């Protein structure tokens, strides 16, 4: 028994050791969306590692999926940084999702987004950082630098590619493909291959009921 316990302790001391499926779970932050927590390996957004989002088209949930997390961070007065988004985040929608805009910072200089994100991550002050690499080819070195910086940040870190960008070989913990819906495909996961690769929100009964009523009214 004691031999077993000490072996377990020894193994636990090395988070970089690959242990197949039985790997020790990495720390995560809840996404704030039940179906997503349930479906993501580890049960949330990984902490201290990069999460890469690859939307098929812009507006496939790359901001919407993060909103509950951003709301939680900003409500705790932890600053949230969006570095180099291609479009303008709508303040009304964010405020309605619960984001306290006072603690939101947008880096508008897209060319400097990677540098700015790295500074924010290294400071260890941000609740969450999302970075859009500038248009064009994304260098593997740039993503590696972000990964190193992300290890110093307490919150989840997202790298969000543009629809026409192809990501470099992954150093991230989690890589998700996004399609309209949103429909999520887990392309890479820290715990190796997982069973169900496609995730999406449960069909909402409220909408179904509304549709049913409309249908019923029209039938009358």
């Amino acid at each position, binding site marked *: 028994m004691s031999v077993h316990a000490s072996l377990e302790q020894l193994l636990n001391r090395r988070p970089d050791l690959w242990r197949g499926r039985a790997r020790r779970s990495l720390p995560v932050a809840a996404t704030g969306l039940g179906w997503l927590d349930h479906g993501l390996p580890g049960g949330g957004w990984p902490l201290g590692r990069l999460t890469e989002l690859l939307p098929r*088209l*812009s507006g496939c*949930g790359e*901001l*919407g999926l993060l909103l509950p997390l951003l709301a939680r961070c900003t409500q705790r007065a932890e600053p949230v940084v969006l570095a180099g988004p291609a479009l*303008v985040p709508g303040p009304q929608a964010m405020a309605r999702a619960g984001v306290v805009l006072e603690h939101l910072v947008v880096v508008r*200089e897209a060319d400097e987004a990677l540098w*700015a994100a790295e500074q924010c991550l290294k*400071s260890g002050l941000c609740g969450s950082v999302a970075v859009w690499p500038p248009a064009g080819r994304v260098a593997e070195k740039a993503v590696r630098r972000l990964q190193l910086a992300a290890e110093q940040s307490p919150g989840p870190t997202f790298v969000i590619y543009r629809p026409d960008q192809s990501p470099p070989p992954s150093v991230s913990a989690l890589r998700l493909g996004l399609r309209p819906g949103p429909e999520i495909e887990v392309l890479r996961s820290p715990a190796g291959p997982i069973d169900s690769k496609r995730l999406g929100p449960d069909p909402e009964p409220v909408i179904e009921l509304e549709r049913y009523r409309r249908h019923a009214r029209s039938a009358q």
Partner: protein
Amino acid sequence: MPGPRNERWLGLYCPQLPLLAAWQCDPQVPELHAVHGHDRGRHVILHAGAAARRAGVAPGQPLGTALAIAPALQSRPRHSRAEASLLEQLALGAWQASSHVVQAPPDCVLLEIAGSRRLYGGLRPLVETLCANLEQRGLPVRTGSAPVPVTARLFALHGLHAAGRGTMREKLHGLPLSALALDDSQARALSGCGLDRVAQLLRLPAPERARRFGPELNRRLLCLEGRQATPLAAWQPPRRFRLRLELPAASSDSSALLFVFRRAIGRMAHWLDVRDQALTRLRVSLYREDGGGSIPLEVGLSRPGMDEERLLELLALKLEDLELPAAVEAVELSADSTDEHRPPQADLWSGNNRGDAWPALLDRLRARLGEHGLSGLAPEPEHRPEKAWRWVAPGTSSHCEDDRPRPTWLLPVPRPCRRENLRLEEGPERIEVGWWDEQACRRDYFVARDRHGRRLWVFHEHRPREGWFIHGLFDQA
């Protein structure tokens, strides 16, 4: 008219001032260094560094002789503007101990210490504290004190202290005549009479002195003895900090510039400290060697304060971005400051001092990204959706009560689209505004789905242009 009886003046004499002023902006001062001035058409050594003096270079030597003695000697001509600015620095140091400070150019500062002496618990602790502070700022001084300002200056040159007028006169009488630094013709006339002590001169009757050596000498002696008051111009630290430093050699190398900035920022920190101010914005001008316009740099702080290392880091970031079109020969700093003090606040909940670290991070980012590279977002109470939001400074709190459907992503400019590709789901929301100004518009907003299944925020515009446009994307789950 003699001044009040209870005055006590302290003289601060910085013998190395010309040397320090000439070499202050060099990152590496050569071991054998000196400063020279003009004397009757010749270059004459004014002051030499310790190593140069050991090598045999002495003040008063012609430059040629000095170079023959120590060929490795590097000497700079005297820089009177830099000396004046360094003397200000000395006066600023003195201001910390007294509110009555007088500059005595080129290398002395006088301060009245009768009141402050009690505060420090005596003359010795006051002088020691003051000297230690100045030494720390790179200004070693010699001191002397007397009840009369002019005499205090003379005593500082010789390291004499006198509490009362009696002792002061006694010590004055004991000085050699050469101490009075009289002009050459007077000195020759005096030594021709066989006089070499101040006491011997004072024993001569006053009319006799005036006849033989001119009336100016008598006036000088009366002032020194405290029998006649000398006019003094009280000095006050400037209301706004401004400093110009010249580089020893024009350079576009950022490390040379940063060294000069380090000097300047050290002085600015001292000024802020003395005036009890906090820095809000630092303005820097880099003067080009080729005479082109100066290059401005600005560093704003999100929270008034002063942290030398942080400020240097911000300046280094600014310089990194800058492409200097020509070498820089001088830099000028000026400071916007406030006397509003906000002490750093520790975060009550997490215990660490993020109250200070976050503004510091924003400053760093802004230094590279520019004022508009970094923003917060705020909704605006405006019906026209393009104007219903704006970029604000990060940390601006705002309030939003709009509960109409608004998208998570806004297109910077609405993009024309084809009605056939859209399936309208919600709407319309009629927006008809601007008839009171020139920007009249009438639109119907819808939530629609495109062929890919994305939810879009689209509008059908009736005025001023007819057509369908995408204005935003809903990407919430």
